[in-house]
């Protein structure tokens, strides 16, 4: 089989250039979708019959929570590819994912606890979703801690990749155990996303936000990836050409 196209695709100068070209194609749609989704969600959508205007935080909370998991999956898949095929660019992708995912996780935690104030009367409730989200944050912190603790980039890449794969196997187990634990101690929570009949005026902005956040992630990932490639290839000669005006 001819693998030249594959190696060309994965070569740092090509990745650097390609990521730069692709970024606007994700960033602009993301900005439009998020602006539209926010307007639709915060202005156009009717207040919830139970939660009033308080529910509107869902337009930031749900997409953040969704992305926090999605980014972890992406990171683990990239890490596995890097481990199995020894692809350096895949490791760079995984390394770029972590801070973005951790930021989404923090956003989900903050909005979740803000939401908790009107719903439960406290900023923190040991709700299974929020608890799992908090543990996910620790998984991200562990991943980044391991990367920064290992000085050799190659070793940091491969060791953190093992951790990401181990983490992804554990995420469902952790979530299951936390849900199980919660069912022992508490009545089911008020906060739910899966109500059967969400009116379209509420649902459409939410979907726009979900898609917008996903595109935002891709745009951020591409930008971070360029930085990551530059750092890793700082000794290479192509960089001088790429950066010269």
């Amino acid at each position, binding site marked *: 089989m001819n693998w030249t196209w594959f190696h060309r695709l994965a070569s740092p100068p090509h990745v650097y250039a390609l990521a730069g070209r692709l970024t606007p194609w994700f960033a602009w749609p993301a900005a439009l979708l998020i602006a539209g989704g926010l307007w639709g969600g915060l202005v156009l959508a009717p207040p919830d019959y139970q939660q009033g205007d308080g529910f509107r935080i869902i337009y930031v909370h749900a997409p953040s929570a969704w992305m926090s998991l999605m980014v972890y999956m992406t990171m683990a898949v990239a890490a596995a590819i890097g481990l199995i095929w020894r692809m350096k660019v895949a490791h760079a992708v995984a390394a770029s994912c972590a801070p973005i995912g951790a930021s989404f996780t923090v956003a989900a935690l903050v909005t979740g606890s803000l939401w908790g104030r009107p719903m439960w009367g406290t900023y923190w409730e040991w709700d299974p979703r929020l608890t799992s989200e908090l543990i996910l944050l620790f998984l991200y912190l562990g991943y980044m801690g391991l990367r920064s603790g290992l000085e050799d980039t190659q070793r940091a890449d491969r*060791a953190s990749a093992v951790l990401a794969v181990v983490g992804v196997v554990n995420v469902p187990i952790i979530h*299951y155990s936390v849900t199980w*634990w919660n069912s022992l101690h508490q009545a089911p929570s008020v906060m739910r996303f899966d109500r059967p009949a969400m009116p379209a005026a509420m649902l459409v902005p939410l979907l726009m936000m979900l898609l917008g956040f996903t595109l935002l992630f891709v745009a951020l990932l591409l930008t971070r990836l360029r930085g990551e490639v530059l750092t890793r290839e700082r000794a290479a000669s192509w960089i001088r050409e790429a950066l010269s005006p």
Partner: protein
Amino acid sequence: MSAPGVALAPERAAALAVSGAGAAWLALLRDLTLAFRRRGQLVQPLAFFAIVTLLFPLAVSPELTRLREMAPGVLWTAALLASLLALEFLFRDDAYDGTLEQYALSGQSLTALMFAKSAAHWLLTGLPLALMAPLAALSLGAPAAAVAGIVASVAVGSVALSLIGSIGAALTLGMKRSGALLSLLTLPLSLPVLIFGARATQLAIAGEAYLAPLELLGALAVLGVTLAPLAAAAAVRISLE
């Protein structure tokens, strides 16, 4: 060609071969022998466990009714931390003197050898903790009838802890100050063990059936046995690169 000394492997390979299980058994024996040459270090996790359980009556209240309610959480938190304490040394000496290198180049399954190391860690910390946990539980007001349940849950749960911990220990190999990072890596992955273990202990203390959470702990231990040595072996190889 002949020369004094032993012949080269190919000629006598079949007669001399050591199976993967045989190699793992020797590796286990080696770790146990070494541990018993340094008995002082063996006692440390146990003493740590005892002193952490002692902190709670002093910090909260000596009332047995309140302590009994807290006992499962106290026991499991202390067991988790004690198991973690011994992990930092799981691979350290072996990495330093080149034993890990020899394991990786032994032609034997590194996964099997990693399993042996986790087994040694469990025999040296998990099992003693399981035997000591009832004493701690009794001092926290648990009834004598709960002893069997507590021993069983700590014994099974600590198997999973030793295995999960071996991954973290292998990943942080060669770092100068790995203690805090090791906890950050290992604790989130250990939470399911804590949850099911504390629940089993709680039910045992309340005199109810604790089989369901115990089975879940068993499932975690089985999953750990199948996957953790693989991950630890991969991590050790990476540390040798």
